[in-house]
Protein backbone atom coordinates (compact mmCIF):
# COMPACT_ATOMS: atom_id res chain seq x y z
CA UNK A 1 0.00 0.00 0.00
CA UNK A 2 1.30 3.43 -0.87
CA UNK A 3 1.50 6.03 1.88
CA UNK A 4 3.53 8.80 0.38
CA UNK A 5 4.48 12.06 2.02
CA UNK A 6 2.37 14.00 -0.44
CA UNK A 7 -1.26 14.87 -0.86
CA UNK A 8 -3.40 11.96 -2.02
CA UNK A 9 -6.07 12.41 -4.62
CA UNK A 10 -9.63 13.02 -3.40
CA UNK A 11 -10.84 9.69 -4.78
CA UNK A 12 -7.99 7.84 -3.10
CA UNK A 13 -8.78 9.62 0.15
CA UNK A 14 -12.49 8.71 -0.06
CA UNK A 15 -11.66 5.09 -0.85
CA UNK A 16 -9.49 4.72 2.26
CA UNK A 17 -11.93 6.61 4.46
CA UNK A 18 -14.60 4.09 3.46
CA UNK A 19 -12.69 0.80 3.48
CA UNK A 20 -11.18 1.21 7.00
CA UNK A 21 -7.81 -0.43 6.25
CA UNK A 22 -5.29 -0.30 9.08
CA UNK A 23 -1.48 -0.27 9.14
CA UNK A 24 1.07 -0.35 11.99
CA UNK A 25 1.86 3.22 13.08
CA UNK A 26 5.56 2.53 12.39
CA UNK A 27 4.88 2.19 8.65
CA UNK A 28 3.13 5.54 8.59
CA UNK A 29 5.93 7.23 10.55
CA UNK A 30 8.54 5.91 8.14
CA UNK A 31 6.95 7.97 5.38
CA UNK A 32 8.00 11.19 7.08
CA UNK A 33 10.74 10.17 9.54
CA UNK A 34 14.03 8.64 8.46
CA UNK A 35 14.56 5.55 10.67
CA UNK A 36 17.92 5.48 12.49
CA UNK A 37 19.88 3.60 15.11
CA UNK A 38 19.99 5.37 18.45
CA UNK A 39 23.25 6.28 20.17
CA UNK A 40 22.04 5.81 23.73
CA UNK A 41 20.49 2.73 25.34
CA UNK A 42 18.42 4.24 28.18
CA UNK A 43 17.64 0.91 29.86
CA UNK A 44 21.31 -0.08 30.13
CA UNK A 45 22.17 3.41 31.39
CA UNK A 46 19.46 3.35 34.03
CA UNK A 47 20.71 -0.05 35.25
CA UNK A 48 24.07 1.60 35.80
CA UNK A 49 23.14 5.03 37.10
CA UNK A 50 19.49 4.92 38.19
CA UNK A 51 17.65 4.01 41.37
CA UNK A 52 14.80 1.44 41.48
CA UNK A 53 12.10 4.11 40.95
CA UNK A 54 13.75 5.68 37.89
CA UNK A 55 14.65 2.24 36.53
CA UNK A 56 10.96 1.26 36.62
CA UNK A 57 9.93 4.43 34.76
CA UNK A 58 12.67 3.93 32.16
CA UNK A 59 11.70 0.27 31.63
CA UNK A 60 8.00 1.20 31.23
CA UNK A 61 8.87 4.00 28.80
CA UNK A 62 11.05 1.66 26.75
CA UNK A 63 8.18 -0.86 26.56
CA UNK A 64 5.78 1.88 25.52
CA UNK A 65 8.21 3.20 22.91
CA UNK A 66 8.81 -0.26 21.46
CA UNK A 67 5.10 -1.09 21.34
CA UNK A 68 3.68 2.16 20.05
CA UNK A 69 5.02 1.65 16.53
CA UNK A 70 3.01 -1.57 16.30
CA UNK A 71 -0.28 0.11 17.16
CA UNK A 72 -2.67 -0.04 14.22
CA UNK A 73 -3.68 3.22 12.55
CA UNK A 74 -6.56 3.85 10.22
CA UNK A 75 -5.14 4.52 6.75
CA UNK A 76 -8.06 6.79 5.87
CA UNK A 77 -7.25 9.03 8.85
CA UNK A 78 -3.60 9.09 7.79
CA UNK A 79 -4.54 10.15 4.26
CA UNK A 80 -6.91 12.77 5.61
CA UNK A 81 -4.05 14.23 7.69
CA UNK A 82 -1.87 14.43 4.59
CA UNK A 83 -4.70 15.96 2.61
CA UNK A 84 -5.50 18.58 5.26
CA UNK A 85 -1.84 19.39 5.77
CA UNK A 86 -1.29 20.17 2.10
CA UNK A 87 -4.66 21.86 1.80
CA UNK A 88 -3.68 24.05 4.74
CA UNK A 89 -0.33 24.87 3.13
CA UNK A 90 -2.08 25.75 -0.13
CA UNK A 91 -4.51 28.00 1.73
CA UNK A 92 -1.60 29.65 3.50
CA UNK A 93 0.07 30.38 0.17
CA UNK A 94 -3.08 32.04 -1.10
CA UNK A 95 -4.08 34.13 1.88
CA UNK A 96 -0.70 34.94 3.42
CA UNK A 97 0.07 37.80 0.98
CA UNK A 98 -3.33 39.34 1.72
CA UNK A 99 -2.85 39.05 5.48
CA UNK A 100 0.73 40.27 5.22
CA UNK A 101 -0.51 43.48 3.58
CA UNK A 102 -2.68 43.95 6.67
CA UNK A 103 0.33 43.27 8.90
CA UNK A 104 -0.95 39.86 10.06
CA UNK A 105 1.12 36.71 10.02
CA UNK A 106 -0.41 33.35 10.84
CA UNK A 107 -0.04 29.63 10.43
CA UNK A 108 -3.05 27.69 9.30
CA UNK A 109 -4.55 25.37 11.89
CA UNK A 110 -5.18 22.95 9.08
CA UNK A 111 -1.51 22.91 8.19
CA UNK A 112 -0.17 22.64 11.70
CA UNK A 113 -2.72 20.64 13.65
CA UNK A 114 -4.20 17.91 11.45
CA UNK A 115 -3.27 14.82 13.46
CA UNK A 116 -6.18 12.39 13.29
CA UNK A 117 -3.85 9.42 12.86
CA UNK A 118 -0.86 10.59 14.87
CA UNK A 119 0.90 11.00 11.55
CA UNK A 120 2.06 14.56 12.06
CA UNK A 121 4.35 13.86 14.97
CA UNK A 122 5.98 10.90 16.63
CA UNK A 123 5.43 11.26 20.39
CA UNK A 124 8.51 12.25 22.37
CA UNK A 125 9.96 9.56 24.65
CA UNK A 126 11.33 10.90 27.96
CA UNK A 127 13.77 8.78 29.96
CA UNK A 128 14.66 9.85 33.52
CA UNK A 129 17.87 7.83 33.82
CA UNK A 130 18.89 9.31 37.21
CA UNK A 131 18.81 12.65 39.03
CA UNK A 132 21.95 13.56 37.08
CA UNK A 133 20.94 12.27 33.66
CA UNK A 134 17.81 12.72 31.59
CA UNK A 135 17.44 11.67 27.98
CA UNK A 136 14.78 12.13 25.32
CA UNK A 137 14.01 11.17 21.75
CA UNK A 138 12.09 13.83 19.90
CA UNK A 139 10.91 13.99 16.31
CA UNK A 140 12.14 16.97 14.29
CA UNK A 141 10.79 17.71 10.81
CA UNK A 142 13.21 18.45 7.98
CA UNK A 143 12.57 22.18 8.42
CA UNK A 144 14.10 25.24 6.82
CA UNK A 145 16.20 24.73 3.71
CA UNK A 146 15.16 21.10 3.21
CA UNK A 147 14.04 19.77 -0.14
CA UNK A 148 10.35 19.05 -0.68
CA UNK A 149 9.47 15.60 0.64
CA UNK A 150 12.69 15.29 2.65
CA UNK A 151 12.06 13.28 5.79
CA UNK A 152 12.60 14.46 9.34
CA UNK A 153 14.19 12.31 12.00
CA UNK A 154 14.02 11.46 15.68
CA UNK A 155 16.73 13.46 17.45
CA UNK A 156 18.39 12.45 20.74
CA UNK A 157 19.00 14.89 23.58
CA UNK A 158 20.71 14.45 26.90
CA UNK A 159 19.86 16.71 29.82
CA UNK A 160 22.46 16.94 32.60
CA UNK A 161 20.86 19.04 35.37
CA UNK A 162 24.13 19.52 37.29
CA UNK A 163 26.72 19.95 34.53
CA UNK A 164 26.59 23.42 32.93
CA UNK A 165 26.56 23.68 29.16
CA UNK A 166 26.80 26.78 27.01
CA UNK A 167 25.61 27.17 23.44
CA UNK A 168 26.63 29.95 21.07
CA UNK A 169 25.29 30.58 17.59
CA UNK A 170 27.32 32.48 15.02
CA UNK A 171 25.62 34.56 12.30
CA UNK A 172 24.32 32.39 9.47
CA UNK A 173 21.27 31.34 7.51
CA UNK A 174 19.85 29.12 10.26
CA UNK A 175 19.96 31.67 13.08
CA UNK A 176 17.95 34.74 13.94
CA UNK A 177 20.08 37.80 14.76
CA UNK A 178 19.07 37.72 18.43
CA UNK A 179 20.49 34.20 18.81
CA UNK A 180 23.85 34.98 17.19
CA UNK A 181 25.53 36.45 20.27
CA UNK A 182 29.11 35.83 19.13
CA UNK A 183 30.84 36.42 15.80
CA UNK A 184 33.60 33.85 15.85
CA UNK A 185 35.97 31.65 17.86
CA UNK A 186 37.87 34.70 19.11
CA UNK A 187 34.74 36.03 20.85
CA UNK A 188 34.08 32.66 22.49
CA UNK A 189 37.69 32.33 23.62
CA UNK A 190 37.59 35.77 25.25
CA UNK A 191 34.33 34.99 27.08
CA UNK A 192 35.71 31.67 28.33
CA UNK A 193 39.03 33.17 29.42
CA UNK A 194 37.20 35.79 31.49
CA UNK A 195 34.90 33.14 32.96
CA UNK A 196 37.73 30.78 33.95
CA UNK A 197 39.66 33.70 35.47
CA UNK A 198 36.65 34.52 37.67
CA UNK A 199 35.84 30.86 38.38
CA UNK A 200 39.16 29.13 39.06
CA UNK A 201 37.58 25.69 39.57
CA UNK A 202 36.00 25.68 36.11
CA UNK A 203 37.24 23.30 33.42
CA UNK A 204 35.75 24.14 30.04
CA UNK A 205 35.57 21.71 27.13
CA UNK A 206 34.91 23.60 23.90
CA UNK A 207 33.37 22.15 20.72
CA UNK A 208 32.84 23.44 17.20
CA UNK A 209 29.26 22.83 16.02
CA UNK A 210 27.75 23.40 12.57
CA UNK A 211 25.97 26.52 13.86
CA UNK A 212 28.65 27.89 16.16
CA UNK A 213 30.12 26.54 19.40
CA UNK A 214 29.15 24.71 22.55
CA UNK A 215 31.01 24.08 25.78
CA UNK A 216 30.61 22.08 28.98
CA UNK A 217 31.95 23.25 32.32
CA UNK A 218 32.98 19.96 33.91
CA UNK A 219 35.00 21.66 36.63
CA UNK A 220 32.17 22.24 39.07
CA UNK A 221 28.73 20.84 39.71
CA UNK A 222 26.09 23.54 39.29
CA UNK A 223 22.38 23.39 38.60
CA UNK A 224 20.58 25.83 36.33
CA UNK A 225 19.65 28.20 39.17
CA UNK A 226 23.28 28.38 40.33
CA UNK A 227 24.48 28.94 36.79
CA UNK A 228 21.82 31.50 35.82
CA UNK A 229 24.01 34.63 36.23
CA UNK A 230 26.66 33.06 33.98
CA UNK A 231 24.35 32.70 30.98
CA UNK A 232 24.42 36.45 30.46
CA UNK A 233 28.07 36.85 31.46
CA UNK A 234 29.01 34.27 28.82
CA UNK A 235 26.58 35.69 26.22
CA UNK A 236 24.99 32.28 25.78
CA UNK A 237 22.22 32.01 23.16
CA UNK A 238 19.22 33.51 25.03
CA UNK A 239 16.90 30.76 23.78
CA UNK A 240 19.26 28.10 25.13
CA UNK A 241 19.37 29.89 28.50
CA UNK A 242 15.58 30.02 28.59
CA UNK A 243 15.11 26.39 27.57
CA UNK A 244 17.61 25.28 30.21
CA UNK A 245 15.56 26.96 32.90
CA UNK A 246 12.35 25.34 31.70
CA UNK A 247 11.27 21.86 32.70
CA UNK A 248 8.46 19.65 31.51
CA UNK A 249 6.87 20.03 34.96
CA UNK A 250 5.78 16.41 35.14
CA UNK A 251 6.55 13.59 37.54
CA UNK A 252 5.80 9.89 37.17
CA UNK A 253 5.76 7.81 40.34
CA UNK A 254 7.64 10.60 42.10
CA UNK A 255 10.35 10.74 39.40
CA UNK A 256 10.92 14.11 37.66
CA UNK A 257 10.55 13.95 33.89
CA UNK A 258 12.86 16.24 31.89
CA UNK A 259 13.37 18.86 34.64
CA UNK A 260 15.26 22.14 34.10
CA UNK A 261 18.81 21.27 33.06
CA UNK A 262 21.51 21.63 30.47
CA UNK A 263 20.19 19.96 27.33
CA UNK A 264 22.44 18.91 24.53
CA UNK A 265 21.56 17.47 21.16
CA UNK A 266 23.77 14.45 20.52
CA UNK A 267 22.45 13.34 17.14
CA UNK A 268 22.15 15.07 13.78
CA UNK A 269 19.44 17.44 12.67
CA UNK A 270 17.44 16.14 9.74
CA UNK A 271 18.41 16.98 6.16
CA UNK A 272 21.70 18.69 7.02
CA UNK A 273 25.40 17.87 7.02
CA UNK A 274 25.83 17.71 10.74
CA UNK A 275 28.84 16.52 12.74
CA UNK A 276 27.00 17.63 15.94
CA UNK A 277 30.02 18.63 18.08
CA UNK A 278 33.74 18.43 17.36
CA UNK A 279 35.91 18.76 20.50
CA UNK A 280 38.52 21.46 19.87
CA UNK A 281 40.04 22.78 23.10
CA UNK A 282 39.98 22.85 26.89
CA UNK A 283 40.41 25.78 29.29
CA UNK A 284 40.78 26.29 33.03
CA UNK A 285 41.60 24.08 35.99
CA UNK A 286 43.24 20.67 35.58
CA UNK A 287 41.01 19.13 38.23
CA UNK A 288 37.63 18.50 36.57
CA UNK A 289 34.84 17.03 38.64
CA UNK A 290 35.06 13.30 37.87
CA UNK A 291 31.29 12.77 37.73
CA UNK A 292 30.66 15.60 35.26
CA UNK A 293 33.75 14.68 33.27
CA UNK A 294 32.66 11.05 32.93
CA UNK A 295 29.05 11.93 32.10
CA UNK A 296 30.11 14.26 29.30
CA UNK A 297 32.65 11.76 27.98
CA UNK A 298 30.26 8.78 28.06
CA UNK A 299 26.98 10.43 27.06
CA UNK A 300 28.16 13.23 24.77
CA UNK A 301 31.71 12.86 23.44
CA UNK A 302 31.90 9.12 22.81
CA UNK A 303 28.48 8.65 21.16
CA UNK A 304 29.07 11.66 18.89
CA UNK A 305 32.56 10.46 18.08
CA UNK A 306 31.33 6.96 17.18
CA UNK A 307 28.49 8.21 15.00
CA UNK A 308 29.76 11.40 13.38
CA UNK A 309 33.48 11.99 13.73
CA UNK A 310 34.83 9.02 11.79
CA UNK A 311 37.37 6.64 13.31
CA UNK A 312 39.92 9.42 13.59
CA UNK A 313 37.72 11.40 15.94
CA UNK A 314 37.74 14.31 13.53
CA UNK A 315 35.09 15.57 11.11
CA UNK A 316 36.57 17.08 7.93
CA UNK A 317 33.62 19.48 7.71
CA UNK A 318 34.21 20.59 11.30
CA UNK A 319 37.89 21.18 10.61
CA UNK A 320 37.03 23.23 7.52
CA UNK A 321 34.74 25.40 9.70
CA UNK A 322 37.44 25.63 12.37
CA UNK A 323 40.00 26.84 9.82
CA UNK A 324 37.73 29.75 8.94
CA UNK A 325 37.59 30.79 12.59
CA UNK A 326 41.27 30.20 13.31
CA UNK A 327 42.56 33.75 12.55
CA UNK A 328 40.16 35.18 15.15
CA UNK A 329 41.67 33.13 18.01
CA UNK A 330 44.61 34.16 20.18
CA UNK A 331 48.10 33.14 19.07
CA UNK A 332 48.35 30.49 21.78
CA UNK A 333 44.99 28.90 20.90
CA UNK A 334 45.91 29.02 17.20
CA UNK A 335 49.14 27.15 17.95
CA UNK A 336 47.29 24.59 20.07
CA UNK A 337 44.70 23.95 17.33
CA UNK A 338 47.28 23.82 14.53
CA UNK A 339 49.25 21.24 16.46
CA UNK A 340 46.27 19.15 17.58
CA UNK A 341 44.56 18.94 14.19
CA UNK A 342 47.64 19.20 11.98
CA UNK A 343 46.07 22.24 10.26
Amino acid at each position, binding site marked *: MRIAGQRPGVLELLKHLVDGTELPQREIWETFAQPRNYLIDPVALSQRYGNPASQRVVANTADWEAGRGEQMVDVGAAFLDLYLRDLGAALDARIDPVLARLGITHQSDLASKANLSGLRKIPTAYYPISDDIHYKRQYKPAGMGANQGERGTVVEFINLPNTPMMDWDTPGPYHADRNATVRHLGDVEELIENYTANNPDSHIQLYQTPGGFRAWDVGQRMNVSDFKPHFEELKVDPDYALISQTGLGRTVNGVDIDPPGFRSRISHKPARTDWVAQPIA*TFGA*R*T*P*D*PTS*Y*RLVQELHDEPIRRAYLT*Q*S*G*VSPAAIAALKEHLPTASQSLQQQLIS*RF*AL
Partner: protein
Amino acid sequence: MPLAQLKLLAEQAFDLHDHLYNASMTAAIRGDRSTSDRLHFVAKKALSRYERRYHAYSRAKTGSS
Protein backbone atom coordinates in the same frame (compact mmCIF):
# COMPACT_ATOMS: atom_id res chain seq x y z
CA MET B 1 49.53 15.50 53.19
CA PRO B 2 49.27 19.24 52.49
CA LEU B 3 46.35 20.35 50.31
CA ALA B 4 48.64 21.87 47.67
CA GLN B 5 50.42 18.54 47.28
CA LEU B 6 47.15 16.61 46.99
CA LYS B 7 46.03 19.07 44.33
CA LEU B 8 49.29 18.67 42.45
CA LEU B 9 48.94 14.86 42.53
CA ALA B 10 45.38 15.14 41.20
CA GLU B 11 46.51 17.52 38.44
CA GLN B 12 49.35 15.21 37.44
CA ALA B 13 46.95 12.26 37.30
CA PHE B 14 44.53 14.23 35.12
CA ASP B 15 47.34 15.39 32.83
CA LEU B 16 48.38 11.78 32.37
CA HIS B 17 44.82 10.72 31.49
CA ASP B 18 44.45 13.71 29.15
CA HIS B 19 47.77 12.94 27.49
CA LEU B 20 46.84 9.28 26.95
CA TYR B 21 43.38 10.20 25.66
CA ASN B 22 44.87 12.67 23.17
CA ALA B 23 47.53 10.15 22.16
CA SER B 24 44.75 7.65 21.50
CA MET B 25 43.06 10.24 19.24
CA THR B 26 46.35 10.97 17.47
CA ALA B 27 46.92 7.26 16.81
CA ALA B 28 43.40 7.04 15.41
CA ILE B 29 44.05 10.02 13.12
CA ARG B 30 47.19 8.24 11.88
CA GLY B 31 45.02 5.20 11.16
CA ASP B 32 46.73 3.03 13.80
CA ARG B 33 43.59 1.51 15.27
CA SER B 34 45.30 -1.07 17.45
CA THR B 35 47.55 1.48 19.20
CA SER B 36 44.58 3.82 19.55
CA ASP B 37 42.50 1.11 21.25
CA ARG B 38 45.33 0.18 23.62
CA LEU B 39 45.92 3.82 24.54
CA HIS B 40 42.18 4.32 25.01
CA PHE B 41 42.12 1.39 27.46
CA VAL B 42 45.08 2.78 29.42
CA ALA B 43 43.51 6.27 29.38
CA LYS B 44 40.44 4.82 31.10
CA LYS B 45 42.63 3.26 33.78
CA ALA B 46 44.35 6.63 34.22
CA LEU B 47 40.95 8.26 34.61
CA SER B 48 40.13 5.91 37.50
CA ARG B 49 43.44 6.81 39.10
CA TYR B 50 42.63 10.50 38.67
CA GLU B 51 39.24 9.98 40.30
CA ARG B 52 40.85 8.45 43.40
CA ARG B 53 43.30 11.34 43.67
CA TYR B 54 40.61 13.93 43.03
CA HIS B 55 38.47 12.50 45.83
CA ALA B 56 41.44 12.57 48.22
CA TYR B 57 42.06 16.22 47.29
CA SER B 58 38.37 17.08 47.46
CA ARG B 59 37.97 15.46 50.91
CA ALA B 60 40.96 17.37 52.23
CA LYS B 61 39.66 20.60 50.72
CA THR B 62 36.23 20.34 52.33
CA GLY B 63 37.64 18.95 55.55
CA SER B 64 35.60 15.74 55.43
CA SER B 65 37.15 12.41 56.40
